[in-house]
Every structure is written in C-alpha cells, then in structure tokens.
C-alpha cells in the first residue's frame, strides 16, 4: 500500500481584506502534503471546518485537488463536530493514508477525538514528516530541542500527525480550483453538549506573536507583573509583538496567548529578545528557531546564553529602560 491519499486539516481566518484566507499553517501543511503525495503520484485533499467558499481557491492553488467542507458548525465545538464529519467520510469509503493537523487549539481537539473514533494513535508536536515506501515517519524535538526523536507507525492507516506551525515553508503550486464536496456533521448525541454562545476577539494593535518580525519576551526575571510594561513598550517601539515565558503566564501576569514555548506559540522572528528569561527547555523549544537571539539576564550561567547571538549579563530593570530611551532618541 503506497502512501498516496493525503489529507490536510485546513482552516481559514479573516484576512485584512475582510474575506477569509487560509491560515499560514494550512498553506505550510498543504505544501508538505504535496511533496509527500508526489512520491507516490498521490493526491492532496483539504478538510475544512465550516464553509470553504472563500478559501477553496487558495487551497487549490497550494495543491488541494479536493476540498471537504463541513458547513457551519452551528455553535458546536470543532473537536467533536469535525472529527465526526471526518469519520463519516472515512466510513463512506474515502480513507486517507495520512492526515496532517496543525498544532493549534482546533487541530489538537479534532485529532484527539478522531484518534479514538478510528482507534489510531496520534503523533503530536512534530517538525518534520517523511514517507519511506509504505511507512510514515514523524520527527519531534525533545529536551528543549536538543534531541530529535523520529517515530514511525506500526499499525494501519490513517496515520494521524500533528505538526507545529512554521515547520515548512509554504509554496504555491499554481493549482486550479478544487472540487468542493460537502461533509456534513452527523448528529453528535450527548458528546455534542457544548455550544459556543459568544465569540470574543481580542484586539491587538501590533503584529501577531507568531507572525511578528521581532518578538520581545519577558520572564520571571522581570520581577513583578507591573514591570511587564517595559516588554510591551519595547515591543511596540520595535513594531514587534510581546511574548512571555511559561513561568509568568502560570503566575497570571499575562494571558496564555502570550506564551512562547513548548506549550505555547512557536516563533521564528528575525530578532528574538529574551528579557529575564533563564531559558528552561520548555521555553527554548518555542524560540530556538529565531534568526537572531538577544538575551538579557542577571545569571551568567542561564541556559538562554547558550543560544544567544548577543548576551547581556545584567539587570533587565537597568538595561531595558536605557534601551527604550536610546531607541526613542533615534
């Protein structure tokens, strides 16, 4: 059995024009799926939670020959609803060899439910996927990204693989419009008891954390919640996004959405500034891929200096205000 029928869990999000566009991770996964399918002359299919009308063209351009769309989820949470729709398509005879999911809030819920429905294992947190003959391998970084563990599936397909954002570069295939097929959500019974009653969009003035060219992150070394303002100010000055280590998210200084690391966002900006962050493995996984890293920390033994291109052994409360003043003066 060759690995030839590859699916990508594909999501859209509102773009600056107002219309929906595929998320950047969706395009990255489609690009990878294309190269995996090419080895066996196979096909790429996108599976969309919700309505696909606005994004189908772009999904086709990046390589999807077919698009399944669930239609409006009617307030159901995507995990339970989309996995049920996927299971129905698989039961109907279109059985994928591999399904790639993004490592995000929605992708993780859908793959978890689907793994139970299909009784198949899931590999999460991967940064690479490869096909060798009939076997599929996925690679995930562990221990703060110092080791790469490659795992293969021993059972039968479909192989469920969750991939971190920014693992692959997105490239257009110049593909045409795909065939769009309805994949409605079946009755969910008791498992469908959760309903979204209101959606809150938090306005951010600057760029998104995982898309910013510059990220300025603060950690426990900032001392107290009020001092995080220095991070916000510097990030704004540099037209970047503020981020945080898990320690201060856990402490409640900033929301979870700020978190950079294994359990938060993976960022790969041109410049990453880590202020008062010691560099726990949990954090390093999320920022090690940055092109340039600047670290400021009192402890010269802090592991963060091991990955820094420029390391300042010093007090963030002295260095940051001066840096902010100097940048203001320019």
């Amino acid at each position, binding site marked *: 059995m060759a690995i030839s029928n590859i699916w990508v869990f594909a999501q859209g999000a509102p773009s600056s024009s107002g219309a929906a566009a595929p998320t950047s991770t969706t395009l990255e996964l489609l690009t990878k799926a294309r190269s995996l399918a090419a080895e066996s002359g196979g096909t790429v299919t996108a599976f969309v939670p919700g309505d696909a009308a606005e994004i189908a063209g772009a999904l086709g351009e990046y390589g999807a020959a077919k698009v399944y769309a669930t239609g409006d989820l009617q307030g159901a949470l995507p995990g339970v609803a989309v996995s049920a729709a996927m299971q129905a398509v698989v039961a109907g005879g279109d059985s994928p060899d591999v399904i790639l999911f993004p490592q995000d809030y929605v992708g993780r819920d859908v793959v978890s439910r689907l*793994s139970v429905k299909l009784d198949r294992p899931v590999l999460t947190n991967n940064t690479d996927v490869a096909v060798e003959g009939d076997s599929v391998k996925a690679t995930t970084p562990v221990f703060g990204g110092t080791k790469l563990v490659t795992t293969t*599936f021993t059972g039968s397909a479909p192989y469920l693989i969750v991939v971190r954002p920014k693992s692959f570069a997105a490239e257009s295939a110049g593909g045409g419009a795909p065939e769009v097929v309805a994949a409605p959500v079946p009755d969910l019974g008791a498992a469908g008891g*959760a309903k979204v009653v209101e959606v809150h969009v938090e306005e951010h003035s600057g760029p998104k954390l995982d898309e910013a060219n510059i990220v300025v992150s603060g950690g426990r070394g900032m001392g107290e919640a009020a001092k995080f303002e220095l991070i916000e100010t510097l990030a704004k000055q540099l037209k970047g996004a503020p981020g945080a280590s898990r320690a201060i998210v856990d402490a409640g200084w900033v929301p979870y959405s700020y978190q950079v690391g294994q359990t938060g966002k993976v960022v790969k900006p041109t410049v990453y500034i880590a202020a008062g962050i010691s560099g726990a493995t949990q954090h390093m996984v999320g920022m090690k891929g940055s092109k340039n890293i600047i670290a400021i920390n009192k402890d010269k033994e802090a592991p963060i200096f091991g990955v820094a291109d420029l390391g300042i052994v010093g007090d963030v409360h002295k260095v940051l205000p001066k840096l902010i003043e100097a940048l203001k003066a320019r």
Partner: protein
Amino acid sequence: MNVIVCAKQIPDPALPGALDPSSNTLKRDGKLILDESDMYGVEMALQLVDTAGGGEVSLVSMAPNGEVSGVRTALAMGAARAVLVSDPELAGSDALSTAKILAAAAKRLGDADLIIAGTESSDGYTGTVPEQIAEVLGLPSVTFAKSVKVEDGVLKVNRQTEAGYDEVTCTLPAVVSVTAGVVEPRYPSFKGIMAAKSKPVDTVTAADLGVNPVGWAGAGQQIVDVASAPERAAGEIIEDDGEAFNKIVDFLDKLKVI
C-alpha cells in the same frame, strides 16, 4: 458536585530529562512529583465543589512502581481519594492507551459531574489525552479553559482561541482541560499533608480495569531514531557596564530592523 481530576506524576522538570536507551522513551522510574499543570485542575475542582456546597474531588493517575508522591500532594491540597493505575504492562503506553486507562479509572470512581485535566503534561506534552478521554466516555468537552464555573447545573467556560476567547456553555457530565494560571493553586497545609497520608488510594492494574491491549503492544507507534539537533553557534556574551544597551542598538541597527 463530584469532580474527578487527572493527576499526572512526572519526573521533576528541574532535573535534566533522559531517555531510556533500550526503548528511547522518557525515563520515569525515579521519584515522581505532581505535574504543576495539574495543580490548577485540582484547585479548580476544589473551588467548584466548595461553591456547589457538597461533593468531593477524586483523582485518577497512572504511574509506574505504585508511585504515589504526586498523588499525595493533590490529596494534601484537599482531594478525597484516588485511583492509581500502576502496572508494568503499561510501560510504553501512548496517549490513546493512556486515555482509555484513565477513562476506565474514572468510571471505577462512579458517576462524576465533571472531569478536569491540564491542557497538556509538562513532560510528554502530547496534549491529546483530555479530549480523548471525553471521546472514550462519550462526553462533551471544553478544552483550553481560561475560566470555569457551574451555574444551575450548566458548565460555563471561557475557552482560549487563536483570536481571543469563546464563551461556551456545556451540559454535565463533561470533560474540561484548564490552562495554567486559571486559578491560584493553594499550598497544602500541615493538616492537609498529615490527612493525606491516610486518604484512600485504590491501586489497580490495566486488567482490573478491563483495558487491553496496553503498553508497547497497544501503542501502534515506535521510536526509530534519536539524533542530536544541530546546535547554534556561540554568540557574544558581555557583562553590563551600564552601556550594554548600546550593543543591543548596534546589533539591531546592523540587522536593519530599526
């Protein structure tokens, strides 16, 4: 209101992790502690039971060698009892097998109104187990909860999303996964620590729960390679003499980002 909390016992994250050279899985045979991520779930459960004015918090955990130190921490915080699944047959279990085991352990505790788990563990961080437990039990679930309350028998959760958060209502019983920082976990009191020593811990095997296959046999996946990641070249490290900020300005300038 009865709440079950999934309490993972993990190797101390402050110590360097290691892989077992024979299986390439995380070494978990030393002393284990309660995963910090699960303290939020325990605290949340205690608060919900408190607000409801009755009921109790129970724990389910799966760990090698009958390890209970982490479970005792959660009992000391105020949980009433625990089911500990400990079985050499469980070595090598993947997330799906783990979810099946924990779901069966939860059932052993009887009908609960709510099952709470952390969004992901601090050691394996697969992050799929809470939602998998819900599916195994046929329950609704709300993941990535930033706040949780129960009003008139309905669960109300603010759920973290990419764009902000969603207000979600959910029927009970249900499964919820909570993000870190959602509540401030209490420190166990001396009285709590003493009381925890005599609280019941029901230690069972996979066979007792009727779950099969488990461990390596049930994993459906195999580690085939462990390699060192390419290291970053060492950079320039300087002591701040009061002027180090200029170094940063120069660095940013050279990259043409300012």
